[in-house]
């Protein structure tokens, strides 16, 4: 199955990919094409947009219409693509820093508009490509090259942030929970509106090494042990949740979608003009 997916959706002539051995990003990329395959979308009608960072190299390996933009701006570019051509299925892949630090403003406004774009956040809790600086999702007290004494920032919950801003579908899963992650990505892609799946990934090279979390396998186990299903989390105290995060569907609602609203506006103006 995996090799058939690779054959069908990957630009294999671009391999080997540039990710480090043990990096979790390839697992998420595979989940994305798996979900697209289940939907049966034509490759010509899919557009994958990214910003800058390790995760943002994924579109280069995926055989769709692909756009690798400037740091943090993937959603702004994607918004132009989607509004100009609503027939395209627009997917944004983004890192935690890319989507919630430099691109935080675009994230909340894309969610507010409820434009039909799916964002997959590859969250590895660090700026990997630039060498391990702390990001808005680096847990407090963890280390980064710019947090040599331990990070004193509090961290963002990206999926909750998007949901609060108006996204109509948000979910979180991990590279340990692959079938669940793929499922959520598929549901996000199906959602007519702004959807976001936060995919918890690992960066053994920068985050793991600096925080003595062991090798890739140790890190995947660490993710497995820190992930708490939302239903279970609701029965746990905040003390019990320290060092843990929730996985599951966080929001699934309906609201008017932006490009449809725009088409309706054009339609209305035409009718008024004819009358």
């Amino acid at each position, binding site marked *: 199955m995996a090799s058939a997916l690779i054959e069908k959706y990957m630009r294999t002539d*671009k391999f080997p990919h540039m990710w480090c051995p043990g990096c979790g990003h390839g697992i998420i990329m595979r989940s994305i094409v798996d979900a697209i395959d289940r939907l049966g979308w034509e*490759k*010509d*009608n899919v*557009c994958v*947009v990214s910003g800058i960072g390790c995760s943002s190299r994924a*579109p*280069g390996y995926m*055989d*769709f*219409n*692909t*756009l*690798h*933009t*400037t740091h943090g*701006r993937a959603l*702004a*570019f*994607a*918004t*132009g*693509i*989607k*509004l*100009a*051509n609503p*027939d*395209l299925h627009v997917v944004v892949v983004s890192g935690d820093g890319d989507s919630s630090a430099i691109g935080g*403003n*675009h994230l909340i*406004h894309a969610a507010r508009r409820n434009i039909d774009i799916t964002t997959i956040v590859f969250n590895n809790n660090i700026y990997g490509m630039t060498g391990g600086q702390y990001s808005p999702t680096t847990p407090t007290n963890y280390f980064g090259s710019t947090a040599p004494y331990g990070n004193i920032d509090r961290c963002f919950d990206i999926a909750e942030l998007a949901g609060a801003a108006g996204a109509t579908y948000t979910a979180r899963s991990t590279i340990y929970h692959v079938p669940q992650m793929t499922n959520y990505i598929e549901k996000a892609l199906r959602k007519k509106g702004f959807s976001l799946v936060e995919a918890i990934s690992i960066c053994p090279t920068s985050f793991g090494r600096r925080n003595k979390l062991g090798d890739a396998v140790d890190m995947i186990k660490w993710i497995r042990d820190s992930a708490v299903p939302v239903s279970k989390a609701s029965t746990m105290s905040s003390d019990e949740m320290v060092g843990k995060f929730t996985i599951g569907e966080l929001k699934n609602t309906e609201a008017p979608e932006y490009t449809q609203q*725009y088409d309706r*506006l*054009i339609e209305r*103006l035409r009718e008024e*003009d004819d009358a």
Partner: protein
Amino acid sequence: MKSNFKLMQGNEACVEGALYAGMRFYSGYPITPSTELMEISAVKLPLLGGKFLQMEDEIAGIAAAIGASLTGFKAMTGTSGPGFSLKQENIGYAAITEVPLVIVNIQRGGPSTGLPTSPAQGDVMQAKWGTHGDHPVIALCPSSVREMFELTVRAFNLAEKYRTPVILLADEIVGHMREKIVVPEAGELEVINRNEPAPRQSNYLPYSVADGAYVPEIASFGTGYRFHVTGLMHDETGFPSNSSENAEKLLDRLMNKIKMNEDDILDFEEYMTEDAEIVILGYGGTARSVKSAVKTLRKEGIKAGMFRPKTIWPSPEKRIKELSEQAKAIIVAELNLGQYVLEVERIVKDSCKLGFIGKANGEVLMPDEIAAKAKEVL
């Protein structure tokens, strides 16, 4: 023939010109004195089935326009000084990815928030050097409302023809001025569309050109060509390549696609320069005072003339050089403390005397000030 006279503001003429050229997408962020570009686009575009988008910030404004252009729409974004600064990174992105786009900058006083509603021409060097790295720049400077219309059409034409971002570098004087213009009839002005590959062409390479050519064909997302666009140095396939050999090849082509086509791109106006002993160079709104100063000087028996670059970048180097060899002096008049004069100085070298008159206090240069400066330099 029915005449189509209208009283129009410069910013309005810019949007009308854009629509004439086929603009169907505008995204931006409000900023004085460019805001009317958005307000008028917001009214007109949906009526034509086009899309208008007020984005969350200036950076998003240009980013969305680049995205729209990649789907085949003619797209524009507009701004003023501080917003132009914010857009710079993505101007570089559009340059290296070769995405057709028009960026309008209705200049205002700066630096920083500066003088929001006062005229200035302080972004001349920013237009050329604002984004990092080497890249070609086309920037056009309109002097009247009618020219706002015409040069916006031209900006789109050049953007589409050369697959490049084009800057319409206007100023508050022309942006906010109202003048009577004759709106061109459909077909009166040339409208150029991008060169798309033949449908279903196999082996489409988004950045490949035939020998001796400079501008690759551009496909639109969603038309059956699945290609990759990146701001990294890329080869003909569009995929990243960081070999120095490739970087050199790409940059050479990018620079040459403008340099080798300067005859097609360059545009300027001359007034009484045939026998001029003193040439006053002015552009945009300032050129109107320059013309008036030339008339005054001529009445006083001084052989003055005006040279007005409409393409301020690339600069009309050859013609400026010729004028410097003919005239005793060239004076540059601009609403800043000395920007384009540096370019003219580079071109003129020691061929003639060079004078400068500038202002950056929010007031315009008056004809008598310019005339007085001319007499002082002669």
